[in-house]
Every structure is written in C-alpha cells, then in structure tokens.
C-alpha cells in the first residue's frame, strides 16, 4: 500500500510512465538523455564491465563460479536486495557475492573496490538490463523495512536535510545546477560510473549524500545502509533495472 501510494505520488507529480523512472534525473531533460546515450554507446568504463564478466564466469573452486552460485540469469525478475527469512537479515547483491565467494573458499571482496566487487556488480546489472526489480516484503522483514523508512525521512547533518527533503518533496527542482531526481527508480540503475570513471554503488552514493549534507556517513554494509537500501528498493519495485551506467 505504501509502495503504491508513493509510486502514485511520483506518477502524478511527473507525468512519465513508471518504466522511465529507471533513468532517474535524466528523464527531465532530453539534452541530458542524449548526452547519456552518446556516452553509453561506447562507454570509457567498458573495461570494468568486461573484467566483471570474466570474474563472474571464472571457475574458482570445484569447477564452480560466481555465476553457478548466484544463479541470477535463471530468474526472470531481479530480486536483490532480498530478506533472508531464515537468517532474518537483509542480503544485498554485494553481500550475496561475498557469501558465494566464501562458499567457493575464496577471500571476500571489499564492497567499494571497482576492480573486483565493482566490476562484477556493474556486469551483473548490465547483463540483466531490462529485468523488473521485485523486492519481496515478508512479515518478518517489517521491522527492517520500517527502520529503513525512518532513515529515509530522518533529517540529518549540519544542513538538517532528509532524503525525502530533496528526492520526495523537491524532485524535479534545481539544487544548484543539479535537477533533483525522484526517489523511485534510483537504486535500479546502480552501480554508476560518475564522470564516466568513478565507481559508485548505491550505498557509496548514500555515503556521499550524507557527507554533502554535513553528516557522518554510515559504514558500507552497515545495518542502517542495508535497511535504507531495502526500503528504497522495495518502493522502486516494478521499475526495470540497468547498471554500470554513466552519470555526470
């Protein structure tokens, strides 16, 4: 119900079809969209995606690879982040990749390393481009979901702003020279390559946002950022995904 309402709010505010929210802030300007398309035609960061492909299919242990462990291609929808009802915990795609690496007797990867985790993340999202993001909300996940929701609406930092201040109430308006993107659809197109080279996962972007409002950012893969990502992705369900894309 909450998801339906919030999506309805944005669909009324900005008259674009739901699928187009995958492009986030780019939907407001044909000019921006064209520059994006031009760079995506031959992205400078293609190397990262190609490396991700190699790492994804490489047989690591017992003739198994990340691909055989993650089994993402078999699903017609994209289902990360998800809530593990047995372990009672939020599993992001990065976390799942590290769980698979452990199963393959391999050392974990850092969540923000563009040469390992970043490459595989960018490859997986771009390979599954077009699939619909579906995030299930089982009853046992409600606490985590509600915490995530609280974090989204909580004012923080010296500037005393919440995610909702910019991306819910003021989406489409300009803040300095940036046109504020709407909340729904944001996690769908991550990870991104800012300035066509700097890797950012959605949680790394949350950290950047927190710093820019003068707050101390939470750690990557912390309970807080996982809850925020879970909430954020749930309300973005139904919108297609992409990843390894260019942003200014």
């Amino acid at each position, binding site marked *: 119900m909450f998801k339906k309402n919030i999506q309805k709010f944005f669909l009324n505010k900005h008259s674009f079809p739901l699928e187009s929210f995958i492009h986030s802030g780019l939907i407001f*300007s044909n*000019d*921006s969209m*064209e*520059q*994006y398309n*031009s*760079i995506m035609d031959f992205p400078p960061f293609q190397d990262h995606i190609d490396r991700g492909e190699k790492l994804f299919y490489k047989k690591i242990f017992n003739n198994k690879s990340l691909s055989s462990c993650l089994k993402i291609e078999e699903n017609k929808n994209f289902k990360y982040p998800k809530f593990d009802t047995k372990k009672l915990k939020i599993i992001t795609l990065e976390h799942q990749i590290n769980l698979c690496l452990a199963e393959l007797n391999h050392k974990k990867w850092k969540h923000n390393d563009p040469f390992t985790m970043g490459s595989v993340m960018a490859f997986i999202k771009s390979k599954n481009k077009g699939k619909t993001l579906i995030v299930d909300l089982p009853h046992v996940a409600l606490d985590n979901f509600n915490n995530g929701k609280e974090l989204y609406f909580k004012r923080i930092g010296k500037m005393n702003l919440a995610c909702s201040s910019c991306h819910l109430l003021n989406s489409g308006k300009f803040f300095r*020279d940036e046109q504020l993107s709407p909340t729904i659809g944001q996690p769908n197109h991550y990870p991104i390559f800012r*300035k*066509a*080279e*700097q890797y950012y996962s959605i949680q790394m972007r949350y950290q950047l946002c927190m710093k820019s409002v003068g707050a101390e950012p939470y750690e990557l893969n912390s309970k807080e950022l996982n809850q925020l990502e879970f909430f954020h992705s749930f309300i973005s369900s139904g919108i297609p995904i992409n990843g390894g894309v260019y942003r*200014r």
Partner: protein
Amino acid sequence: MMKFTLTRRSFIKRLSLYYFCLFPFQTNFSYAHQNIKKFFEYTNKEKLFDDLSFSNLDLNNDKNINLKTPDIAENGSIVPIQIESFIDGEQTFYLFSSKNENPLTSIYHFHENMVPFVSTRLKLQESSKLHVFIKFNSNIVHAANDIEVTIGGCGEETIG
C-alpha cells in the same frame, strides 16, 4: 671482386624507402601543414582565426554543416560533439572552443572513402561557442553552437 651496380632507378627507390621508414606519417595533409602544431599553442582566438585565414568570413551557420552539441554540458570534461558535412570530397574540419586556454581543439582531415563525419568528446573550460570551419578545395564554410558549461572540464579533476 664482386660487382655491385646501382642504377639510378634503384637508387631513387632505395632513397624513398628510407624516407618512408623515417617519416611514416607523411601524408598530403600533415606535409602541407608542417607548422600546424604551433596553432594549438595560440591563446588568442582572434589572432588564431586571422593566421588561419578564418577571419572576414560569414560566421553564420552554413547549411552544409550539421553540428550537433548539447545545450547544457552535463560535465565539461566529457562533452559529446558530432559534426557531419554534406560537402563531397576531401576536406578538413577545424574545431575551436572559444573560451579554452588554447581555442584550437582539434583538426580532422578526411580523404576519399571516408564520410565527412566525426563524433567525439571534448573538454570545455566554460560556457562558450563551439566553432567548426570546414576547408575544402579553396573554400571555407562555418558553423557554431553555444554550449553552456556548469562544471569546467580543463582544470583540476576531483577524481580520487
């Protein structure tokens, strides 16, 4: 004693072989513009246009040129530019960004078998005019677009 004869023909052939080994990039274009490199050091746009004989030209947009540029560059360090000319035959594109420290950004020469088209990415320092002059036979045509730049692309980058 071994006789070694060197005919005039074989001498010239040998000389030209050495020449092309030493200067593999001598084409009509670069040979005719031996001093082209110095124009890239110019900082004054007017003097640059003067010395390249681009002054006193009609600076309207020629209908034979399709210059595609963004209205507002998302990022001044990577601005996609596309130029297409409807002129036949060998020709040269000269691209200027009016407010860059050195306004001459690049020169593209198209021989036969090439469509006179190039799409590339440039750095723009600030909001400015992007000029293209096309030289073909002894004619010159021009087109220019304004591009607004919010984050300048030539200075310090903030990539860590």
